[in-house]
């Protein structure tokens, strides 16, 4: 359902190649984007999507190839020139200034002046106009640091839209959004498309690509494999193009024998975040925790682990009441948490993989206060091999690995600690298809060995495929417990949006 507007070529990238020391990131990539289309780009991590977009944004310069924007050939450009050419970027990580207001952020780098001064009147007027266009109700005088995540994203989009761009790149825009916010975003994207803006949409979520995209380009190993109309492709086909072969089942579900309750949480509460949360996870069971962004699901997970301890309620592990006021107590109670924000809370980028691995349990491989270096190395290497760490170099700094591999290490470090309960908060966010399968396999193996898994994901399809039961949170309260048999996207969404139980 392509809109009937001017379908001239907005962007033409031809035979783009780019190498970094030792790596050929792009090899003769071609990309044509029309005005008024949503052009999705998919590919595994490392396929070259980011590099291509950074070239478009002026951060990198291609070794070879040419770029034409609106029919004009572009030479070497820097980020500012790229912006002036009408290329707007919306990244996964928001690029806002928390200490400036919404209005100032929207006009950052190009504030209206009156004489030498900022014209605050037209600054506010501009911001209001743009936000209205996006149908966003945000006070333009608020400090951006005080806004919610999804409001911030709207500001980010407003910032880009206010410059009247001809091409806008969305890089994983929904990774931190809940379903409701995603809907709002899609509406905004549709409006932008209608006004003739060419949109490049990068996502790992193929369902979204199916929904919002007009055409899709698949990248693999730095080359473009194919560009197709979305109407004529299925997610399975996309996956096959991305990985180069069939991935038999994206979410393999093992049927495991479910044992006794391992984790039982009763009436857990924490002021302003959640209250009266009761749930249980049994041995060998994978339980989902669903809810919109801001429903309190992450907070519940953090409370059980002790990162932001609960203020009321009881936690039992294998029937024994435990007091958890810090992650250390969480760990000794046998609980592990793979946090939501991998970069911020998952890895220490400068430390080697080995040291990241052993961080929670370094005390256990210590004798007379000294770390047993040999045992540490051997243990970690063995585990890294089991996790398919790629490359399998445990002395390399964590920061040099891809997102998927970093996530494997985060997961692995907790498995190494041999927990009874594994809590996973968005374990596959921003992870490519291949690593995703690895991660699901690892989780499955953990459950198979009798562990209890509590998993949070914004991707309902993932929860539905993997979980034995799903708890649903709405505004800090538990609103539903849905067994696997009766769980559908609709039933979960209804509960998450507060449409069940009074």
């Amino acid at each position, binding site marked *: 359902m392509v809109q009937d507007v001017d379908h001239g070529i907005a962007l033409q990238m031809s035979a783009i190649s780019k190498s970094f020391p030792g790596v050929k990131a792009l090899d003769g990539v071609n990309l044509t984007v029309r005005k008024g289309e949503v052009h999705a780009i998919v590919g595994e991590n490392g396929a070259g999507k980011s590099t291509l977009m950074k070239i478009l944004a002026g951060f990198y310069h291609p070794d070879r190839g040419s770029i034409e924007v609106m029919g004009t050939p572009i030479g070497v450009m820097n980020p500012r020139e790229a912006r002036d050419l009408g290329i707007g970027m919306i990244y996964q990580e928001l*690029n*806002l*200034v928390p200490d400036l207001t919404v209005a100032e952020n929207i006009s*950052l780098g190009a504030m209206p002046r009156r004489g030498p001064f*900022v014209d605050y009147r037209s600054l506010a007027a501009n911001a209001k106009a743009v936000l209205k266009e996006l149908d966003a109700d945000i006070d333009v005088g608020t400090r951006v640091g005080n806004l919610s995540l999804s409001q911030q994203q709207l500001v980010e989009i407003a910032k880009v839209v206010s410059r009247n761009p001809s091409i806008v790149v969305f890089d994983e825009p929904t990774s931190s959004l809940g379903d409701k916010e995603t809907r709002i975003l899609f509406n905004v994207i549709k409006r932008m498309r209608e006004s003739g803006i060419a949109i490049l949409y990068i996502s790992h979520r193929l369902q979204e690509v199916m929904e919002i995209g007009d055409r899709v380009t698949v990248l693999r190993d730095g080359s473009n494999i194919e560009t197709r109309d979305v109407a004529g492709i299925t997610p399975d086909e996309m996956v096959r193009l991305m990985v180069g072969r069939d991935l038999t089942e994206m979410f393999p579900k093992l049927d495991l024998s479910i044992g006794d309750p391992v984790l039982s949480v009763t009436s857990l509460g924490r002021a302003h975040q959640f209250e009266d949360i009761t749930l249980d996870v049994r041995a060998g069971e994978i339980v989902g925790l669903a809810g919109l962004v801001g429903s309190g699901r992450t907070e519940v997970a953090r409370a059980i682990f002790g990162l932001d301890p609960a203020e009321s309620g009881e936690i039992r592990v294998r029937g024994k009441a435990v007091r958890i006021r810090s992650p250390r107590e969480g760990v000794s109670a046998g609980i592990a948490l793979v946090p939501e924000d991998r970069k911020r809370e998952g890895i220490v980028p400068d430390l080697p993989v080995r040291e990241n691995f052993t961080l929670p349990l370094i005390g256990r491989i210590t004798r007379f206060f000294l770390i047993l270096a040999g045992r540490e190395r051997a243990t970690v290497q063995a585990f890294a091999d089991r996790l398919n760490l790629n490359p399998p170099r445990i002395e390399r700094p964590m920061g040099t690995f891809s997102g998927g591999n970093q996530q494997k290490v985060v997961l692995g470090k907790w498995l190494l600690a041999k927990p009874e309960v594994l809590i996973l908060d968005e374990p596959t966010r921003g992870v490519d298809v291949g690593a995703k399968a690895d991660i699901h396999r690892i989780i499955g193996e953990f459950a198979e060995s009798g562990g209890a898994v509590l998993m949070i994901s914004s991707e309902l399809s993932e929860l539905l495929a993997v979980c034995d039961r799903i708890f649903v949170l709405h505004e800090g309260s538990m609103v539903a417990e849905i067994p696997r048999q009766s769980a559908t996207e609709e039933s979960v969404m209804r509960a998450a949006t507060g449409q069940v139980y009074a």
Partner: protein
Amino acid sequence: MMRLNIGTIGNVVVRYRLLVMLAAVAVFGGWTLDDFLTLTTLQSILDRAAVVGFLALGLTPILIAGQIDLSIGSIMSLAAYATIALQPDLGNVPAAFIGLGVGILAGVVNALAVVVFKVTSLVATLATLLIGASLALLISNGQPASSADPLFGLFLTDNFLAILTPRSVLFIGAALLMFVWLKGTPSGRNLYAVGSSMPAAISAGINVNGYIAGVFVLSGFCAGAAGVIQALSSATGSPIAGSVLLIPAITAVVIGGTRLEGGRGSSLATLGGVVALGALTTLSEYNGVPSYTQAVYTGLILILLITLDRIAGGDEGKTTRTLRSAAVAKQTQQGGTS
């Protein structure tokens, strides 16, 4: 509806606490001394604030940009010495301009070290602190230069409109000018962006390196101005003039409420911080309180204020952000690839 943004609670709190300090000083001073609450006391406080005030003013944009400049004291010493030592050869006024030029030059050196050679500002300016102090002593052979025309700069401390002196007018004027720049002009707003979120500033096409270089040059200029004013008003170019003023300047800026982590601050807050500290010092001196007792309660106030700020403001422990300059090298490199 026009808002002079950032005018949110944070700033209100900051201004409020300075008023509390000043009010406490006034009440206590009026209570213990019968000659404290006079215009001359105010004049004396403002006058004494001028020199350390210029240093603190120069430091303000530096901190807003998330940087630090430890070399301002040394720069001030060099400028003060040049201002007096060159008088016989160049004449009084040209020598003063050379003093300012020395400050700017030193600022350029800092800017180069931070922006071009990617040395974090804490380390770079520690090095230039050592180098500057050493150069001042070497060039002067450890001897302060005395002006042959000691009456030339005396007007700087003359009475002006009952509560001011020419040099306090310069300081207050500079603070107001800087306030207008920081709050009212695009470049001022951009500076906050640089300190608050460098990636955002880069992606908005703001020349981050330029701004960072700029604030170091400005800070050098301010330190130079402090040196020139100090030298002229005391008719002495001491090679150690600024060495003791670095810590008071930082203290004043911090008490004023400018954040060490970048992105927040104001020159009026700095003005307030300098005056509040000056008032406290003057009150203590009038009461004959020994300097070490003053040090004890300056330390207490500093810790107390910042703890209150931390608890009340609940800035969610951004200790990991520490000084943003750590990120300069990486970020600017990314933004400035050629």
